[in-house]
C-alpha cells in the first residue's frame, strides 16, 4: 500500500486539505477528491487545454501537474470564476456570442482567457489567438470564442474606467 501524501492548498480562495496518491494528477485530485468537476480531461497529455487551471497566477494544464505539487499553492479553477452566482464577464460574453456548443472545452478556455486578461487587459486579436492556441475545440470553432473574449476584455476595461 502506497503512503498517501497530505496536501494543503488554497482552491478558489478556500483553504483545502486532501490526501492523494503520489502519482495522481492535480486534475484527478480536483475532480475526485475535491468534487470540482469543471476542469475536464480531454487528452491527459497537455495538448488540449480542457484541464486548464491557474496556479500561483500562472496558467497550467492540471493534467501535467501532480496533486502533491500543489502543496502551499493557490489554485483557481472554473468553479471560482462566477462570484456569488454572478457570472464573470467572460462567461456572460460566451453565452451572448454563443461561443460554445458541447461545452467540454469551455471551462478550460474561460480559465485561460481569464489568465490572459489578468496579464494583458487589452490584447489584440492575434495575441488572444496565440494565447488560446493550447485550448482545442472540436465543435464551435474558434471565431466566436475569440469574439467573446475580445468583447469581454472591452467590457472589463470599460467597467474599470467607470468604477
Amino acid at each position, binding site marked *: 500500500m*502506497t503512503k498517501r501524501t497530505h496536501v494543503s492548498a488554497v482552491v478558489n480562495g478556500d483553504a483545502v486539505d486532501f490526501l492523494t496518491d503520489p502519482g495522481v494528477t492535480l486534475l484527478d485530485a480536483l475532480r475526485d477528491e475535491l468534487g470540482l468537476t469543471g476542469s475536464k480531461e480531454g487528452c491527459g497529455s497537455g495538448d488540449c487545454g480542457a484541464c486548464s487551471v491557474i496556479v500561483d497566477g500562472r496558467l497550467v494544464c492540471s493534467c501535467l501537474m501532480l496533486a502533491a505539487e500543489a502543496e502551499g499553492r493557490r489554485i483557481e479553477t472554473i468553479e471560482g470564476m462566477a462570484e456569488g452566482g454572478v457570472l464573470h464577464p467572460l462567461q456572460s460574453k460566451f453565452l451572448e456570442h454563443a461561443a460554445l456548443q458541447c461545452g467540454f472545452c469551455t471551462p478550460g478556455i474561460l480559465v485561460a482567457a481569464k489568465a490572459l486578461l489578468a496579464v494583458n487587459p487589452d490584447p489584440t486579436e492575434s495575441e488572444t489567438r496565440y494565447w488560446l492556441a493550447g485550448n482545442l475545440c472540436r465543435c464551435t470553432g474558434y471565431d466566436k470564442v475569440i469574439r467573446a473574449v475580445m468583447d469581454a476584455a472591452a467590457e472589463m476595461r470599460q467597467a474599470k474606467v467607470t468604477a
Partner: protein
Amino acid sequence: MPQTEYLAPTTADQAIAALAAAGAAARVLSGGTDLLVQLRAGRLAPGLIIDLKRIPEAIGVRREGGGFVIGASTPGVMLGEHLALREAWPGVVEAAQLIGSTQVQGRASLAGNLCNASPAADSVPALVAADAVCVIVGPNGRREVPALAIAIGPGKTSLAPGEFVLEIRLPAVGARSADAYLRSIPRTEMDIAVVGVGVSLILDGGGSIARARIALGAVGPTVVLSEDAAAAILGSVLDEAALERLDSAARGACRPISDKRGTAEFRTRIAGVLARRAAKIAYERALLRA
C-alpha cells in the same frame, strides 16, 4: 499509478541523497510536461518522483557577474517575465517560449528540454549558440558542461546515474553582441521544429563579425554547432555574399532524417534559409547595442 512515492526536497543535497538511495527507480521532476505524459502512457513507472522545484537554486533567474543564472527547473513563463534576461538574451528566451502552449509555458523548463534530449528541442540550439553552461550535480559533486554536451542522441543524455541539471548559466552580453533563434513548423503555433537555428554574434567596432556561433536543431540526432557556418560570416558585415556562404555552410552541416514533418532535402534547404534570417536578426540587434 501504484507504488510511486513523491518527494520535494528543499536542498540540492537532499535531492542528490534521495536520488542515490532510490537508484534507477527514481525520476526527477521539473515541469513534468514530458514525465507526466510518460507516466500516463505507462512507459515509466518510477518508484520515486523527486520534484526539484522547491530547491531555491533550481527556480528563478538571478544576475551573477554580469551574466545570468537560470534555475534549471524554471518554467518558460518566468523567463519571459524577466525583462533583463529578455533584453540580454532575446534569442534564448524566444526559443524557450516557443515550446508548447501558454499552459505548457507555465511548467516546461530548460532542463527538461535539454534532458528530454529531443533533436528538435527548441531551446537547445539557442542555448548552444549562447555559450550556455549547465551546472550538473550528483553523487560525485558538481561539474559544469556546455549545453551542447547534455544530449548525446535522441532521448539520451551524458548525465551519469544520480545526476541532474541544477542551473543553466548564460554569460554576460557585451556591446555589439546579440543572439536570435528561428524555427520552422508546418503550423503557426504548437508544433515541433522541423528545423531550428540559433545564432549568437559579436561585432567589432566597424560592424564586422568578430565571433559567431551557429547551432542547428532537428537536422541531426543532436544539435549541431557548425564551425563552418560561423567561419562563413566571420569578418564580414553580413553582406549578401556572406549570407550565401552561410546558407551553403549551414546546409552542409545537416544530417537530417525524413519523417512526417519534413523530408531530409526540405530540412536541409530550410536550415540554410533560417540560418540567413536568424543571423540577420542577431546582426541587427547587435548593431543596436553599439
